[in-house]
């Protein structure tokens, strides 16, 4: 075996151990809830917990709302910047990256000051208002992921020429968007959407400080009070994230027309 090949295998093996050993440890611990034997009791406990189902469904709904708002806002914006204001592209990119720089806790305290009980728009006073605020917060958090995915998708197609081709054939802007632009960046939009969903499902800061019944705070609560269930829950969360990543890979690999 050549030295280069051997090194590659060693590096891969070390990487695999680094990732897998903690997971195997967590899994092993999660299965030891019943004294002396391995069992799925911790998983049964987690799945049987009403709060798990409630918070999980709430976060799934929130992820869906976030993705819809994000796509509706960001796809036309990224398209418009590319078509009509290409010079603004780097500025817009900078703005969309801000949520990665500004800590979530700063953003949420800003929200509480702006939309708290004493403000001109007290969104936090009602559940619906607080849900809306959480969704808007999640859209802000997802900006870097959705914008960059969409922008990468737009880079891969000749947006201007395809738009002009469609317009010359009589298409209105909405038709161009729905029948030309969106279908051709579908994989990018889906990648951004799944990434956003993965982030929303595990998000803690926004949901906790806005006091919403989301999956993130539930995981934290469980972790603070139980032993085996949090290990089972973290494996469930891992599986969810991996599932979403696999979907990104599946859709990302599919080319239009294939």
């Amino acid at each position, binding site marked *: 075996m050549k030295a280069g090949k051997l090194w590659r295998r060693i590096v891969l093996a070390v990487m695999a151990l680094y990732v897998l050993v903690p997971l195997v440890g967590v899994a092993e611990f999660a299965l030891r809830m019943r004294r002396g034997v391995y069992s799925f009791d911790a998983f049964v406990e987690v799945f049987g917990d009403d709060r798990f189902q409630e918070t999980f469904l709430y976060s799934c709904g929130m992820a869906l709302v976030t993705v819809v708002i994000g796509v509706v806002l960001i796809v036309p914006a990224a398209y418009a910047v590319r078509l009509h204001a290409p010079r603004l592209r780097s500025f817009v990119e900078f703005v969309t990256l801000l949520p990665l720089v500004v800590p979530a806790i700063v953003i949420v305290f800003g929200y509480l000051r702006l939309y708290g009980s004493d403000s001109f728009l007290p969104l936090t006073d009602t559940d619906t208002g607080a849900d809306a605020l959480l969704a808007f917060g999640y859209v802000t958090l997802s900006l870097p992921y959705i914008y960059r995915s969409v922008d990468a998708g737009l880079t891969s*197609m*000749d947006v201007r*020429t*395809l738009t*002009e*081709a*469609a*317009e*010359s*054939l*009589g*298409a*209105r802007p909405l*038709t161009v968007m729905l*029948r*030309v632009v969106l*279908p*051709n960046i*579908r994989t990018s939009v889906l990648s951004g959407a799944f990434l956003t969903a993965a982030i929303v499902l595990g998000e803690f800061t926004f949901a906790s400080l806005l006091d919403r019944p989301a999956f993130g705070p539930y995981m934290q609560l469980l972790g603070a009070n139980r032993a085996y269930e949090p290990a089972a829950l973290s494996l469930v969360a891992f599986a969810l994230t991996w599932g979403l990543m696999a979907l990104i890979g599946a859709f990302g690999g599919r*080319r*239009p*027309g*294939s």
Partner: protein
Amino acid sequence: MSFLTLQGLRKSFGASVAVQDFSLEAERGEFISLLGPSGCGKTTVLRMIAGFEAPSAGRVVIDGEDVTHLPSRARRIGMVFQSYALFPNLTVEGNIAFGLKVAGMAKDAIAERVKEMLALIGLPQLAGRFPSELSGGQQQRVALARAVAIRPRILLLDEPLSALDAKIRVSLREDLRAIQRELGITAIFVTHDQEEALALSHRVVVMSEGWVEQVGTPAEVYRTPRTPFVATFVGTANVLPCRIVDAVSGRVALGSVEIDAAHALPERKVGDTVVLALRPEAISILPFDGATNSIAAVVRDVTFLGPVARLRLVIDGDVAVTVDLHGEAARALPDAGARVVLWFRPESLQFLDRREHNLEAG
């Protein structure tokens, strides 16, 4: 009244002016080429007709309707792009049907029109393929079918053959011409390739630096170029600065050699400088001296190009001249350094204007 009227079109981008005072009238069914080098403004003119660029000044009138301020979608034009611009998510059939669906045509009528278009471009067997599964030539045929499927008033072609290899370019060029003639559609074709422009067009508009240099039939533009730019851009030409010796008979001096140009120049006087164009193929090499317009020259180099041999010579010490010899004349070529006698007909000489702009084609 003309079918397409472009009146005083001007386009500037900030301080830079892309198109200056462009006027053109095209008849229904006419094929007009806008010919010029990169950056001469030809594509900008096309984009103003299409509605993708708003003119800074001037009007675009199609079939009596002023469309200057109409969006592209309302102009009923068909456009073929250099990069094909087929929708990657749609099949060949879907691409051709796109404009028809947008127009709200009935399903049966769409299917019928798509079938007709596929037959027109000779690709009925590829209806279900995606653009990524087609060759460049096939993609451009589909783009052409998509553009004409909506029965546009004008077909705009933005260097549609430039991205194709030489053989396919020639075959598609012939098909393009046949389809345009068959449909009787008015076409504006942008190209930097003079051969394409001459082969396809009823008229050619030669452009340079945003200005129209000359408008005419391919033969006019080639045989009687009006400016040094046209003479050298369309084909090859010897551009010879001369002094007038006799304005009435059209006798001029090229350096110290006098030649007969056979054009009376009543508006010029003796000693004025004029510029003449002489095509390389209009010059012969004579075995003797003494005929009218026979000039002694020295061969600098000889290049064999297959059907033609190109000679570079010097007249009168410093005037460079190119001569193309064909057929029998190219069989026995002189060597570099040889002294020869050049001859040309006086009527082969073409007087060139100083740069004149604002030409309008009727």
